[in-house]
C-alpha cells in the first residue's frame, strides 16, 4: 500500500514537471524558435506578425508587435507566456504576472544573447538537447562566417537602410551592425552610438558607401526604390549598381537570422569578385 502511494506520488510529480502544454509567444522570433524546438503544436497564442513557419498563421492572435491583448491571453489559459525584454510594455507583463501567469522574458540584442536565450528557452521548456543543437548550429555558422570575413581582401563599406524620407539607417548599437561585420562588410555608420540614426542626404552622399542594402518594408515598389537612389548618382553604390533589397524578415532573431546573414555574406562576396 505504501509502495502504491509512493507510485502515485511519483506519478503526480512526473505530471508536475512535465513540460508546458499551452504556450503563448509574444514575438515572431520566439514563435519561430518554439517551432524549431519542436513545440509548435503547443502554441495557443501568437502575434499578428507571426507568419513563419506558415502553420503559425493559423494560431489565434493575442498581440501585435508591441502591444499585447491581455484579455485574449488570459482567456487562452496559458501555462507559460514567452516574451522579449525589447519592445514590450512592462505594465502589461506585470499585470499578467500579478494574475499568477508564468511569464518568461528573453533578450535578443546580439548574437551572443540569441544563443544564451535559446539555451534558457530550452531549459524552461525542457528541451535542452534540442536547444543545444540549435545554439551549436549558430555558433558554428558564426565561426565559419568570421573565418570567411577574415579571408576577404576587399571589405565593402556598407550602408543598411531601414527607412526613407528621412533616411533611417543601421547604426553601431544594433544587431544588424554585428551581422554586417560577420558578413565581411564595414558598416559606414558603425561608429554611431545610436541603433537607428537618421541620416541626412548630405551625410549619405558624403559617406559614399560601396554598397547599399535596403531593408525597407511595406508598400514601396521596386521602381520607386530605384528612382529614389538614382537621385544620388555620385554615390559609389548607386553608380556601380550595388544597391540591393533584402527581406528584413530573414534577419529575425531566431534561427532565421542565419538566412539573412547568408544573404548579406553572399552580396559581400559577390562584391569582391567584381
Amino acid at each position, binding site marked *: 500500500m505504501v509502495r502504491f502511494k509512493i507510485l502515485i506520488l511519483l506519478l503526480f510529480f512526473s505530471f508536475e514537471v512535465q513540460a508546458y502544454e499551452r504556450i503563448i509567444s509574444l514575438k515572431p522570433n520566439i514563435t519561430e524558435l518554439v517551432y524549431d524546438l519542436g513545440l509548435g503544436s503547443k502554441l495557443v497564442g501568437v502575434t499578428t506578425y507571426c507568419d513563419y513557419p506558415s502553420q503559425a498563421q493559423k494560431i489565434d492572435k493575442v498581440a501585435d508587435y508591441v502591444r499585447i491583448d491581455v484579455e485574449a491571453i488570459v482567456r487562452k489559459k496559458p501555462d507559460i507566456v514567452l516574451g522579449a525584454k525589447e519592445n514590450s510594455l512592462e505594465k502589461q507583463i506585470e499585470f499578467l504576472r500579478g494574475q499568477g501567469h508564468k511569464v518568461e522574458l528573453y533578450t535578443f540584442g546580439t548574437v551572443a544573447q540569441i544563443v544564451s536565450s535559446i539555451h534558457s528557452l530550452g531549459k524552461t521548456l525542457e528541451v535542452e538537447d534540442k536547444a543545444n543543437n540549435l545554439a551549436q548550429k549558430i555558433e558554428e555558422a558564426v565561426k565559419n562566417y568570421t573565418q570567411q570575413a577574415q579571408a576577404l581582401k576587399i571589405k565593402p563599406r556598407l550602408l543598411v537602410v531601414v527607412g526613407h524620407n*528621412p533616411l533611417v539607417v543601421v547604426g553601431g548599437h544594433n544587431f544588424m551592425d554585428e551581422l554586417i561585420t560577420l558578413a565581411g562588410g564595414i558598416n559606414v555608420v558603425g*561608429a554611431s552610438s545610436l541603433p537607428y540614426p537618421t541620416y541626412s542626404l548630405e551625410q549619405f552622399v558624403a559617406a559614399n558607401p560601396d554598397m547599399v542594402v535596403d531593408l525597407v518594408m511595406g508598400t514601396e515598389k521596386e521602381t520607386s526604390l530605384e528612382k529614389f537612389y538614382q537621385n544620388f548618382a555620385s554615390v559609389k553604390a548607386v553608380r556601380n549598381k550595388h544597391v540591393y533589397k533584402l527581406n528584413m524578415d530573414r534577419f529575425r532573431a531566431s534561427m532565421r537570422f542565419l538566412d539573412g546573414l547568408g544573404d548579406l555574406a553572399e552580396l559581400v562576396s559577390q562584391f569582391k569578385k567584381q
Partner: protein
Amino acid sequence: MMPLQRKWMVVLGGLLFLFVGCIIALSFLGNPILSFSVLSEGGDATLKEIFFNIRIPRLLMASLVGAGLSVSGVSFQSLLKNPLADPYILGISGGAALGSVLGSFLGFSVIFIQITAFIFSLLSILFLYRLASVNGRIPVHTLLLSGVIFNAFSFALILLVMSFSAMGQAQQILAVLMGNLEVTNYQTVLLLALFVGGGFLILFTQSLKMNVMSLGEEVGTSLGINLEKHRLVVFVAASMIVGASVSAAGLIGFVGLFVPHIIRLLFGSDNRLVLPASFLGGAIFLMFCDFLAKTVLTVESIQTQLPVGVVTALMGGPFFMMLLLKDKKNA
C-alpha cells in the same frame, strides 16, 4: 509718405541682403564644409552633388516653408486680432497634416495631396473661427483651447489612419508629424514656390485692409471694407500656404509665431511692411534652424539629424510662454 517708403526699402533691402547671404553661406557650411571649387567644372562629383542636388534644394525648401508659415502667422494674428495665433498652435497645420496623410493613404498624386491639405486647412480655420468666436470677438483662451482640442482631434484621426497603414506607410506618416525639409527634386520646390508665392501675393494685397481692421471692425466697415470678403480671401490664401507647406515638409511649429513677433518688435506693426519682412525673416529663420538640425549631431559618435521641428520648438516654445505671461500681465 516718403519716410515710410524709405523705411520699407531699407528694411526689406537689408533683409533681402541677409537672406541671400544666408543662402550662400549655408550652402557652403555644414558637414562637410564645401569650398568654392564645387562651382568649378572639374570639382569633386560627390561634393557637387551635395551642393546642387541636396543642399540648395533643401535651403530653398526651408526658405519657402519658413516664409509661408510666417506670413500665414501674420495674417492669422491680424485677422483673429490675437498675437498668439500661429498655424501650428491653432491646429490648422494639424488639419493640413491630416489632409496630407489622408491624401497619401488614398494614393493621390503629389499635387492632389497638396490640394487635399489645402482644403483641410481651410476647413480647419473656418471651423476654428466659428468655434472660438464669442459675440464676434475671439478671446485668447477660447482660441487657444479650440486650437488644442482641434490639434488633439486631428492627431487622433492621423493615428487612426496610421493604424490602417502598412509599416512602410506608417513611417511616412511619422515623417509628416516630425517635419522634414529634405527634397530629392526641384519639382517639389517649384510647386511649393507657386503655392507660397501666390498665397503671399494675395495676402499682400490685403495688407492695407489688415491695418485698417486693426483699428476695429466698425472703422473698417465705415471705410467701405467688405469684412466677409476680406476675411475669406485671407483665410483662403493662408490655408493655401499652410496646406502646401505641411504636405511638402510636415509639421514644423512656432515659426509663424516667433518670426512675426520679432519683426513687429523691430520694425513696427504696419502690415504692409510686416508681411514681406516676415516672408524674408521666416525664410532666414527656418534655414538657420534647419542648418542646426542637420549639422549639430553629425559628429562621428552620433551621426544623426534632428527633426527641424525640435529646433524651432526649442526657440519658439519658451518664447510663446513669455508672450502668454506678458498677455496675462496686461489683462
